[in-house]
């Protein structure tokens, strides 16, 4: 190894050590990139490199979809659409055993198609569904797990912001990543449903049907609820995702139409006010600031790291591991799974993913071409990172849920989430073994 490569290795180890302490990751990466670059490459080259990375990210044509999908999600939530969706599904499904589980997971799945981040999904579901589940005598462990796991589907099912960020990072079109994530997203939601309903059927005390006196007797009221509360949202989702998948609009354009449409829906439901608009705009700007500044910082860090030549050394070292290609993939998946415990998805996707990406590109698996391999890998990462939301000690879902449902202890929520993490790992294994779950939609669209 050359001196520069050793320097890069020190930079990598230093970075991991320093970000563990807890200072915001973006600023740490920027600082380390500038300092190590100046030592190894000289200040002029480093500063040029940093400037080009910042400027390049600011002129990116894919990233604008990030704030737009955040805006759309925030607006749909403010329009009270999640509440309407849940109420409609609850009344529709009332006679079924475990109906509240089903209503929670279906609400979460549909809402996940209207929002790009996990955001308030867990909180809103916790506020709406948890009191009903407690009142109906539902099992607390299964309930908390269903809400926490269902609420995190937003980051996997398109229009996931994580996939938008992953696209430029991996050099893959976002619309392909979206079409790839549908299969695993619905599979996972389906597995949650099978699990909760299966357990309710075996042991009805875990999730009894809604008592007769709490049901709405008149079917017309239920149907009207579905039409008023669900149909407009379904149209909005169909339009936004449909235009992306059909290649009629770029993700950015579709996201903007989604944001406009969601604002229009909020207006129609009489939920639009100056405060709502202001909060949506400020929240959008803030979240975009956080996620994309981290992208800027990791691009600066990554550019220096690559220029020092260390990225190449690591790729060669990883490629030389005496394992079959499938073994290497599984090692990477285990590493990502473990990284999900301390880190949140932006750090994993932006900082760690680029390090293993060159190895992934060399894998020969199942007769896939390179593009298919990459979008399959992207979908695997997305499923894998679902677990990051449920793995303590930084299980964001647990904190959101604990805040709104004080009756459930943190320990109980963790146990409930642990059950669903096992389902996620099984889902990941299925998607590894059956790549067609990911690839059927991208293939049939081409």
């Amino acid at each position, binding site marked *: 190894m050359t001196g520069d490569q050793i320097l890069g290795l020190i930079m990598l180890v230093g970075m991991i050590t320093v970000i563990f302490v807890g200072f915001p990751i973006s*600023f740490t990466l920027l600082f380390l990139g*500038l300092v190590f670059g100046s030592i190894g490459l000289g200040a002029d080259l480093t500063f040029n490199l940093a400037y080009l990375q910042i400027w390049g990210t600011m002129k990116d044509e894919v990233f604008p979809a990030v704030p737009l999908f955040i805006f759309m999600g925030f607006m749909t939530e403010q329009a009270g659409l999640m509440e309407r969706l849940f109420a409609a599904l609850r009344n529709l499904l009332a006679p079924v055993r475990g109906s509240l589980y089903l209503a929670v997971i279906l609400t979460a799945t549909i809402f996940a198609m209207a929002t790009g981040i996990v955001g308030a999904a867990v909180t809103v579901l916790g506020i709406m569904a948890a009191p009903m589940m407690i009142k109906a005598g539902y099992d607390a462990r299964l309930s908390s797990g269903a809400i926490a796991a269902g609420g995190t589907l937003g980051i996997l099912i398109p229009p996931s912001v994580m996939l938008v960020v992953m696209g430029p990072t991996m050099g893959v079109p976002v619309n392909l990543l979206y079409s790839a994530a549908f299969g695993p997203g619905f599979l996972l939601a389906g597995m949650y449903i099978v699990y909760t309903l299966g357990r309710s059927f075996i042991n009805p005390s875990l999730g009894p049907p809604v008592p007769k006196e709490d049901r709405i007797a008149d079917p017309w009221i239920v149907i009207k609820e579905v039409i008023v509360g669900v149909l407009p949202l379904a149209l909005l989702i169909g339009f936004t995702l449909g235009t992306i998948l059909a290649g009629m609009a770029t993700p950015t354009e579709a996201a903007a*139409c989604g944001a406009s449409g969601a604002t229009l829906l909020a207006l129609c439901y009489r939920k639009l006010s100056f405060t709502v608009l202001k909060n949506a705009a400020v929240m959008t700007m803030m979240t975009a600031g956080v996620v994309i500044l981290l992208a800027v910082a990791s691009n600066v860090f990554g550019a220096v790291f690559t220029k020092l030549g260390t990225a190449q050394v690591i790729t060669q070292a990883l490629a030389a591991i005496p394992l079959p290609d499938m073994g290497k993939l599984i090692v990477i998946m285990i590493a990502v799974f473990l990284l999900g415990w301390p880190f949140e998805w932006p750090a994993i996707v932006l900082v760690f993913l680029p390090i293993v990406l060159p190895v992934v590109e060399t894998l020969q698996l199942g007769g896939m071409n390179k593009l298919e391999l990459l979008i399959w890998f992207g979908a695997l990462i997305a499923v894998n990172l679902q677990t990051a939301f449920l793995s303590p000690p930084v299980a964001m879902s647990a904190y959101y849920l604990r805040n709104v449902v004080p009756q459930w202890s943190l320990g109980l929520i963790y146990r409930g989430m642990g059950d669903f993490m096992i389902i996620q790992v099984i889902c990941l294994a299925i998607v590894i073994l059956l790549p067609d779950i990911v690839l059927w939609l991208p293939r049939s669209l081409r």
Partner: protein
Amino acid sequence: MATPTPAYLATIRGIDKFTEYTAYVFCLLNLPLIGANTWEVVSRYGLGEPTEWALDTTTQSYGAMFMLGAAYALSKGAHVRTDMLWENFSDRTKGLIDAAGYILFFMPTMIVLFWISIDDFFYSMSINERSNTTSWQPVLWPLRGVIPLACLLLFIQGIAELMKSLWAARTGQFLVHQEKLDL
């Protein structure tokens, strides 16, 4: 419990307010971002003629918005941290780590980035640099100017954050409560 001097508190509050008001201005960038793309789709499919200006409007308003929103995110404690150890630290330890981070990492970085980006801004202005993505060719210097401006705003907010963390390091209590961001 110790209380900070009125001037100390006023400085922190003043900077927080300043950042908040600038954020209210910059969040208006959502309008061109959403509007331009919505109109582009309507115009392309409804009227049969794509616009020339939507693409540049998008990248410029997006690029400016996230850079200028970073300072507001800082004031809300929203930038992503590794929480594994952080959550278990006392407020005093958190204050110490943050104070060290702001002095050693954050401020030098912002000064350097400001310094390397301000030249390009002046140069871009002097040659009246224009975008060449479409035939619309809008001027680029405002976007070039966003980088030093963002660094400046981050630096100013960083002073308030440094003061907050120094106080926490000294007294073991945070003056301002900050919430974790939903991602």
